[in-house]
């Protein structure tokens, strides 16, 4: 590197940022200096700064995608604060100080008391001290050599692993939002499962409580070495409020020979009010690479929140005999918009994929499934089965299905099934005539509709998800 260039790169904050170095936030807007500042604040190695800068430079040449079946006001990317250190929230002394609406939600979901306190940021009893819980888990994981930490910690302590795999599944220039994330991501999760290790517990972001505020540009990287196995849980059913309207996360999974990652998400970000005011824009890039032979990735998602969801957890089936799965429930109500689905890219021989998507639309919402099944020329014996079911509640919501199928190998077998149904008066009357009222009936119908997906969720998630759907649909039926 020439000295001039080096000087340029290292030039500190000549646009007046210097004075801000001690404070928690930097001014609004995005520029190369902001990217450098983020990297510097996080004490990152040069290669990571380079990764960010090249992403940023590429992002400048890109335009926001317009193909999704969603509409929103133009996002002003210069009106966003791209870095602010997690501010410690004011601890509340007791549950009496918590927003009653939040308490009602916890009640309905049946969240255990100590969790409620933790989620509502109430000081937690000594017995249930979250930090000690976290520590216990960390010790247990360390015993078998599993690394589970924040992304920032991983950059500091395991830079070689991060360098090897970061951007290897979702390249920094992959798409508009992934490029933005690559330039400005602040934190996220990192997980490494060593060879022939079966993770002794479900890894939950919930236990990484000290990093709960990972911000709007979250970055997750999970690596499963040969013969390993991990189940990863993201999110929680409790509603999450955030002042940042735009969220653009990137999740990368890498699975080597005979290994498996099961990734489960329950997303319940603030969806805006009944009139569609406010709410999170959730533009996420999630992709897994089945790099090794006989590897497997299984995505399960329950998407109930956000004003806009733009999300396609995908599998690149590179290794021979690898398997990709996608199980999804997406529920939209009021004015929510969801455009979600998956991509299954078959490259290796005898690769298999399975897609089960359940979309539920209520209110004036719009729910789209968008999925690509692509079979490459060398993917002999590839097989895919897709099933997309939509359910409508009321008469002014929308359900759409956009399946794309590209097959370049004549030995491939691809099946697609779709159905649309409506919760009608007669169904509701059947329940009523057995003494079951409106909301309970809808909840039961919906949960029956989603059962195939819920069966793939870890037990406690499944129970909560069941209640969550009922809660989200409250008042949407006569």
């Amino acid at each position, binding site marked *: 590197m020439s000295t001039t260039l080096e000087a340029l790169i290292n030039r500190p904050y000549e646009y007046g940022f210097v004075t801000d170095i001690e404070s928690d936030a930097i001014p609004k807007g995005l520029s190369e200096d902001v990217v450098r500042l983020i990297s510097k604040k996080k004490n990152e190695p040069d290669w990571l700064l380079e990764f960010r800068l090249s992403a940023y430079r590429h992002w400048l040449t890109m335009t926001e995608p317009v193909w999704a079946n969603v509409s929103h006001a133009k996002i002003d990317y210069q009106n966003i604060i791209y870095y602010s250190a997690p501010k410690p929230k004011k601890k509340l002394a007791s549950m009496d100080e918590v927003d009653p609406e939040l308490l009602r939600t916890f009640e309905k979901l049946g969240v255990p008391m100590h969790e409620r306190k933790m989620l509502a940021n109430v000081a937690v009893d000594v017995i249930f001290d979250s930090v000690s819980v976290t520590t216990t888990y960390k010790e247990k994981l360390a015993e078998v050599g599993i690394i589970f930490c924040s992304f920032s910690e991983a950059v500091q302590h395991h830079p070689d692993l991060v360098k090897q795999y970061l951007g290897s599944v979702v390249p920094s220039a992959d798409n508009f939002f992934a490029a933005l994330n690559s330039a400005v991501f602040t934190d996220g999760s990192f997980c490494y499962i060593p060879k022939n290790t079966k993770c002794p517990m479900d890894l939950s972001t919930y236990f990484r409580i000290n990093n709960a505020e990972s911000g709007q540009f979250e970055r997750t990287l999970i690596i499963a070495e040969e013969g390993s196995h991990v189940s990863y849980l993201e999110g929680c059913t409790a509603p999450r409020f955030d002042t940042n309207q735009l969220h653009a996360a990137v999740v990368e999974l890498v699975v080597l020979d005979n290994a498996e990652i099961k990734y489960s998400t329950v997303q319940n970000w603030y969806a805006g009010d009944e009139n569609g005011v406010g709410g999170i824009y959730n533009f996420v890039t999630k992709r897994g690479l089945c790099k090794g032979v006989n590897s497997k990735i299984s995505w399960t998602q329950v998407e109930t929140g956000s004003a806009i969801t733009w999300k396609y957890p995908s599998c690149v089936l590179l290794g021979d005999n690898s398997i990709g799965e996608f199980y999804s429930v997406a529920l939209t109500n009021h004015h929510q918009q969801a455009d979600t689905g998956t991509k299954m890219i078959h490259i290796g021989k005898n690769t298999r994929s399975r897609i089960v998507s359940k979309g539920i639309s209520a209110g004036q919402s719009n729910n789209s499934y968008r999925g690509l099944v692509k079979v490459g020329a060398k993917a002999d014996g590839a097989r895919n089965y897709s099933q997309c079911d939509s359910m409508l509640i009321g008469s002014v919501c929308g359900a759409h299905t956009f399946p794309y199928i590209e097959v370049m190998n004549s030995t491939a077998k691809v099946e697609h099934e779709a159905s649309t149904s409506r919760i009608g*008066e*007669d*169904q*509701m*009357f*059947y*329940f*009523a*005539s*057995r*003494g*079951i*009222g*409106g909301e*309970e009936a809808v909840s*039961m*119908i919906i*949960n*029956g*509709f*989603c*059962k*195939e997906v819920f069966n793939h969720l870890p037990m406690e998630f499944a129970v909560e998800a069941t209640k969550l759907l009922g809660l989200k649909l409250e008042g949407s039926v*006569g």
Partner: protein
Amino acid sequence: MISSNSKVILEVRNLSASVAGIEILKGINLTVRSGEVHAIMGPNGSGKSTFSKVLAGHPGYTVTGGEVLFEGQNLLELPPEERARNGVFLAFQYPIEIPGVSNSAFLRLTYNTQQAHRGGEELDPLEFNDFIQEKCKIVEMDPSFLDRSVNEGFSGGEKKRNEILQMAVLDPRLAILDETDSGLDIDALRIVASGVNKLMTPDNAVIMVTHYQRLLNYITPDFVHVMRRGRIIKTGGKELALELETRGYDWLDDEYQRATPA
């Protein structure tokens, strides 16, 4: 078993109802006492099924006049789920399928909802399993049906048996069987009918809506009512059903018209 001293369960007075602005029921009068079996017969389009749905509270029908007292209480002001909890049961002509919801979970929810309403004891899944196994015997239903989704993939006969199983679970004061015999072969008909007979007590009552006399061979009615154009035009004993079987309905029409000049 039946005497005029038996308690009145249902009192329908001059009930009229419409759907989409078209009047279907035009003044129905009917009194049902505990221990009684009433058959309502009539040709297609006479309003039989509408009558049963109106009693159960189907939201698609508008009551335009008259009143219905159920155990002395105004039934028409209650939403359908409360009518059910109070003891009105409707066995559907076309039972609805509920994919993904197991029959046992559905039955247990209905049972516990009912129990909560009556102040009775609710059952956990294990206790309910014992309870439901016994009930299954009433309609000779294989317990494997409990694990299947409600009515999904059931044959016509299995669906009807499942309706009677629900009746057995809910133990209604008044059961309305809407064409429960339609689509049943003779064996299924016998099983369904014998199920209903086993569930009859001096304290409850049954209204059977049917086209055909054959169901009445198995469940003996105390009264047979003939419906025609939204009215009950004739009431008799079980022999009336046999007469209808041989003579059809038209003669009744003529008789009714003579009796009530326009």
